[in-house]
């Protein structure tokens, strides 16, 4: 079953057309990577998936309902690129607040904080944490609702390699338990960790594929190079 279906999605921001007409599906229970350079439309697309982006035309369906429907708000979690938590609250207070909004309790909140490796910092004000730690608080505040679909905008930026690996293991454990994850990144070395890949460039979908398929299509074991080869091949066709 598909968790997300996007059909002919057109989005303008200001006078600029950011997404000129996207269509794709995201399978449930997998980690789907949304990759592309900065400015390719990843964040705009993710905002559309959670229903906070005004769209020009097209449809976005999540778990069988229009994106942003009231019924979806407890089933879809969203972690923005910049940590969106309260700097003047402690880690624990942030997690408990979002837990309350999702109808979860203090125990789930504390478990979510421990789950992102911040149990020791639970009593600290978020303002006093490092950038990477703030990002993890933001992630904990989404995990606390045990969403069925988790939309993560560049969740591993600024994390040390060990933590990054741990987070990816976490993402796959969640997917194995049935959660659908959509993770954006602008670094291609994370593409290899995804089950499926959506490659975005200037608002256009360059590839809807798997890492193995992309390596084969781009004739390279290196995903970055494979991506470049695919882009060049497309440009040659267009020329």
């Amino acid at each position, binding site marked *: 079953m598909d968790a997300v279906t996007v059909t002919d999605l057109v989005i303008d921001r200001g006078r600029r057309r950011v997404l000129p007409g996207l269509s794709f599906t995201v399978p449930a229970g997998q980690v789907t990577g949304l990759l592309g350079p900065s400015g390719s439309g990843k964040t705009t697309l993710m905002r559309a998936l959670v229903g906070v982006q005004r769209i020009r035309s097209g449809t976005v369906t999540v778990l069988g309902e229009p994106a*942003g429907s009231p019924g979806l708000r407890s089933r879809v979690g969203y972690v923005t690129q910049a940590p969106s938590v309260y700097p003047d609250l402690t880690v624990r*207070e942030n997690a408990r607040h979002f837990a309350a909004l999702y109808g979860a309790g203090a125990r789930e909140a504390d478990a979510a904080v421990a789950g992102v490796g911040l149990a020791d910092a639970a009593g600290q004000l978020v303002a006093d944490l490092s950038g990477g730690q703030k990002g993890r608080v933001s992630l904990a505040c989404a995990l606390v609702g045990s969403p069925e679909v988790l939309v993560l905008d560049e969740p591993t930026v600024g994390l040390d390699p060990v933590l990054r690996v741990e987070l990816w293991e976490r993402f796959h454990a969640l997917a194995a338990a049935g959660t659908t994850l959509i993770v954006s990144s602008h670094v291609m070395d994370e593409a290899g960790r995804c089950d499926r890949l959506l490659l975005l460039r200037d608002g256009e979908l360059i590839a809807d594929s798997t890492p193995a398929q992309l390596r084969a299509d781009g004739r390279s074991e290196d995903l970055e190079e494979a991506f470049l080869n695919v882009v060049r091949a497309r440009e040659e066709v267009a020329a």
Partner: protein
Amino acid sequence: MTAILDRPAPTHLSPRLTAATAGRVLRQLRHDHRTIAMMLVLPSALLGLLYLLWKDVPTLPGQAGIFDRVGLTMLGIFPFVVMFLVTSIAMLRERTSGTLERLLTTPLARLDLLLGYGAAFGLAAALQAVVTVTVATTLYDLDVTGSTWLVVLIAVADAVLGVALGLLASAFARSEFQAVQFMPVVVLPQFFLCGLLVPREQMAGWLQAVSDVLPLTYAVEALQEVGRSAEATGTMWADVGIVSGVALLALALAAATLRRRTA
């Protein structure tokens, strides 16, 4: 091409989520000791300045002293102004930090969020009013004929009005500079026309008409009623009702102008 309409989502009010929001706002305040100190002490200090200003000014026999009249009115104006400023900045912070957008993706209804703010700052205002009224009546000999609890009640209603108008104004502010300037826009005309500077009967007819539709006018009238009657009057209750009604209306308007989907 038909654009997808941005239909306002139904607001399913939830007392539990309103309480969660109020609790969160109060916890944020609790971590900010200086703000708490300023909220509690500043109105009393400013009132003290007014007390000293008029202490030695002679009053006509048979008339209430100027401080008794102005000081009492100030007990309603301070919470209105302070809460207007605090909430318009707090809401702007929610907007710029991304927490507002995040909240809008959760089951929290928009009116829950705004009522939560109203409840939290209403509670803070109640504490502020108890401190200010106690200081005013003991240290500055402020003469109130009616019950001081009614003064506290009116101060809280004024504070909630300030919160509601602050939340509404913040919907139109795109930057901190704009948000701060909404204070004189919203507050000063109401202050000028509320009947404190010039009695309303002596105003030009059209100014009096403008004053009739400004909520602070009723807040001030309610305080004046408590100032001169031992018992709570019908006019006072009507005034409190008008202030509270306008506050609720402004909260509903603020919820309606809060867009879930943005460009």
